C-alpha cells in the first residue's frame, strides 16, 4: 500500500485555512468590484448634481462638506484605485508579463502598497 500518496483533504474555509496574501488580494479585487457597482451610483449622483446648475453644484459641495459623505467618497475612490491597479496587474499577467510565481507575488505586494499610498493621498486631497 502506498499510503503516503493518498490525496489530502484541505477544507478551504477562512476558519480552518490561512489564505496566502495573494489570495486575499485576489478576493479583494472581486469584493471592490462588487462594491464599486454600487459606488458608481454615488459618484454619478454627485456628478449629476454638480453638472445640473450653479445651485446643484453648491448642493453637491454642501453634501461633501459632511464628514460621512467624505468618508464614503474616500472609500469609493480608494476601492477604485485598488480595483484599477489590481486590474492592470491582471492584464499584464494575461500577456504573460511577470507571470512567474516570484514576480506575480512581488507585483501583488506592489499593487497593495501603491494602493495604500494613493488612497492616503486621495484622503489628504478630500480633507
Amino acid at each position, binding site marked *: 500500500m502506498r499510503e503516503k500518496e493518498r490525496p489530502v483533504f484541505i477544507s478551504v474555509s477562512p476558519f480552518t485555512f490561512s489564505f496566502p496574501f495573494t489570495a486575499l488580494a485576489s478576493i479583494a479585487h472581486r469584493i471592490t468590484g462588487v462594491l464599486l457597482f454600487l459606488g458608481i451610483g454615488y459618484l454619478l449622483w454627485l456628478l449629476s448634481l*454638480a453638472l445640473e446648475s450653479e445651485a446643484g453644484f453648491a448642493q453637491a459641495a454642501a453634501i461633501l462638506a459632511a464628514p460621512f459623505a467624505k468618508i464614503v467618497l474616500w472609500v469609493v475612490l480608494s476601492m477604485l484605485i485598488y480595483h484599477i491597479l489590481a*486590474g492592470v496587474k491582471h492584464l499584464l499577467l494575461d500577456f504573460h508579463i511577470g507571470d512567474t510565481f516570484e514576480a506575480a507575488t512581488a507585483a501583488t505586494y506592489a499593487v497593495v502598497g501603491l494602493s495604500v499610498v494613493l488612497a492616503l493621498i486621495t484622503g489628504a486631497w478630500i480633507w
Partner: protein
Amino acid sequence: MVTNVTSLTRSGLSDFVLQRVSAVLLTLYTLCVVGFFLVNPDMDHATLKAYFASTPMLLFSTLMVLSTAAHAWIGMWTVGTDYIREHYFGRHHTFFRLVYQGGCLFILFVYVVWALQLFWSL
C-alpha cells in the same frame, strides 16, 4: 456543455476580451477625469460643465456608459454564477440567481439611462 444564456456574449472568450477592453477604456477615462480635477483645484460649475459638454468628452462619456454596463454585467454575472449555486443556495438556486441578475440588470439600466440623459442634455 452548459450553455449560459445569461452571459453577455454567450461566449466566455468574447466576455473575457470585452471585460479587458472595457477595463482599459474605463481606466483611461478615470485618468482623464481625475487629471481634470487635479489641474482645477478651485472647481466651479461652469468649468465642470464646459469640460463634460465638449464633443470629445461627450463621446468619451457615452463610450464609458456602455463600457461600464458591459464591464459591470460581466463582473456581476461571474460573481453570481460563482456563488449563487446549489451548494450554497439549495434547490431553488436558479430562482435566487435570476432575482440577483434581474436586480443587477435593473440597476445597470437605471445607470445607463440616467448617465446618458445627464451627458446628452448638457
